[in-house]
């Protein structure tokens, strides 16, 4: 079943602080994503993979076209939706694992990981139990759970991000290099988590620089280069 429809989407940046330079990026992107699929975004470095993913998450604005997400039984066009609707859509339908961990200092790792589940109505206890299970699977030592992840190593922060992203069974998931900077064991855990999400019927869009990881979990690929302008 289709979960995401990208129709004739175009994107450009206008840099007002630099003489209003216009940087065209994409034109006429058409792309659909179905539940159970894991599609790899491909293209050389700088081709705009992360930009496209951010557009799908409504983090970046699209100048043209429509991006529709199947949210609670209806299609929601996020290029026209209100902030309120997009927040609701992100809360229950679309998860995004970015490469950066952005959190309030002092908040414990356990709270940060449980938070998305509490936000959709789970009890604090149930959310904490699931958070502990994920943190343990991702080999974050138990004595770190009560600490803020801001003091952790890059690889540990990445795994906290993944735990936070996978605690909710989102119908649509966006993964920006989820296996980067992980050792073999943790990499396999992340691939298992992706496989489990696919089995549940999640529609997944991912950026994987690691060819072996891509081959292991992806059901197809989408090259953004063909829609790129001016490269």
């Amino acid at each position, binding site marked *: 079943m289709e979960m995401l429809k990208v129709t004739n989407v175009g994107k450009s940046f206008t840099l007002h602080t630099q003489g209003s330079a216009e940087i065209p990026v994409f034109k006429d992107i058409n792309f659909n994503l179905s539940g159970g699929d894991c599609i790899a975004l491909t293209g050389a470095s700088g081709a705009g993979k992360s930009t496209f993913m951010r557009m799908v998450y409504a*983090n970046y604005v699209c100048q043209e076209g429509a991006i529709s997400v199947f949210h609670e039984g209806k299609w929601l066009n996020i290029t026209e939706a209100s902030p309120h609707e997009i927040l609701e859509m992100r809360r229950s339908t679309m998860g995004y694992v970015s490469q950066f961990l*952005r959190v309030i200092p002092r908040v414990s790792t356990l709270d940060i990981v449980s938070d998305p589940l*509490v936000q959709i109505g789970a009890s604090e206890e149930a959310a904490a139990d699931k958070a502990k299970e994920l943190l343990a699977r991702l080999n974050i030592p138990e004595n770190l759970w009560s600490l803020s992840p801001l003091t952790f190593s890059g690889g540990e922060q990445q795994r906290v991000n993944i735990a936070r992203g996978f605690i909710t069974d989102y119908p649509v998931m966006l993964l920006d290099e989820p296996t980067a900077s992980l050792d073999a064991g943790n990499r396999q855990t992340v691939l298992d988590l992706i496989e489990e999400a696919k089995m549940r019927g999640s529609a997944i869009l991912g950026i994987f620089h690691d060819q072996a990881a891509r081959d292991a979990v992806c059901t197809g690929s989408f090259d953004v280069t063909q829609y790129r302008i001016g490269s």
Partner: protein
Amino acid sequence: MSMNREILLRVENLTQMYGDRIGCKDVNFDLWPGEVLGIVGESGSGKSTLLNCISAQLQPTSGSVSYNTRADGLKDIYHMIEPERRLLMRTDWAFVHQNPRDGLRMNVSAGANVGERLMAVGDRHYGNIRNTAEDWLSRVEIQDNRLDDLPSTFSGGMQQRLQIARNLVTGPRLVFMDEPTGGLDVSVQAKLLDLLRSLVRNLGLSVIIVTHDLAVARLLSHRLMVMQRGHVVESGLTDQVLDDPQHPYTQLLVSSILQT
């Protein structure tokens, strides 16, 4: 916590003129329960004027501010009779000032500062008031042996936390904050951000927060309004406004942040 679908506050065409000078002009937005709205912009951009107009402290020149009252639904706060508006400000609303001295009574004890708000809404039992005050001081991490001390003996960060306790003790639904972390050093600021975030989440508060600190805005608010010379020049999802700003002024603001 999922947001319910009823608008809590609606601001329409709100304008405040100071003679010929614009305080804020044609501001429109809706606020939902559980939502945190950040208002950013440089000093003099009209942020505080707007906040004062919305929070019934400054009658706007034109436009309306409607609040979803428990009894009658959406109602223009400037068309309410004075006692009704006063009651709303004491019960459903709270205002956290940048300078805790503006929001506290400095010559009565910390406990009395919190208890006073309770008495204002009709609580009369001394034991209950003292217990509730104690409970709130512990929630904002002020030790109970400071209950009888004057706020003037507190540090700036403690005073700010006391002001928050005083404001939230009556269980408001909507909290206005004017630069609540301004003037605090960064470690105290982090503590306060954590406190505000957990209060918003656990109590389902709606918040309108004025700040010039974009990092604070990013961590606390769901949505942002960017103001310049009294006008809202850009508004939207916080991360969208900060990561892909469309207006020249927002781009300038975002590109002016120092990297650490």
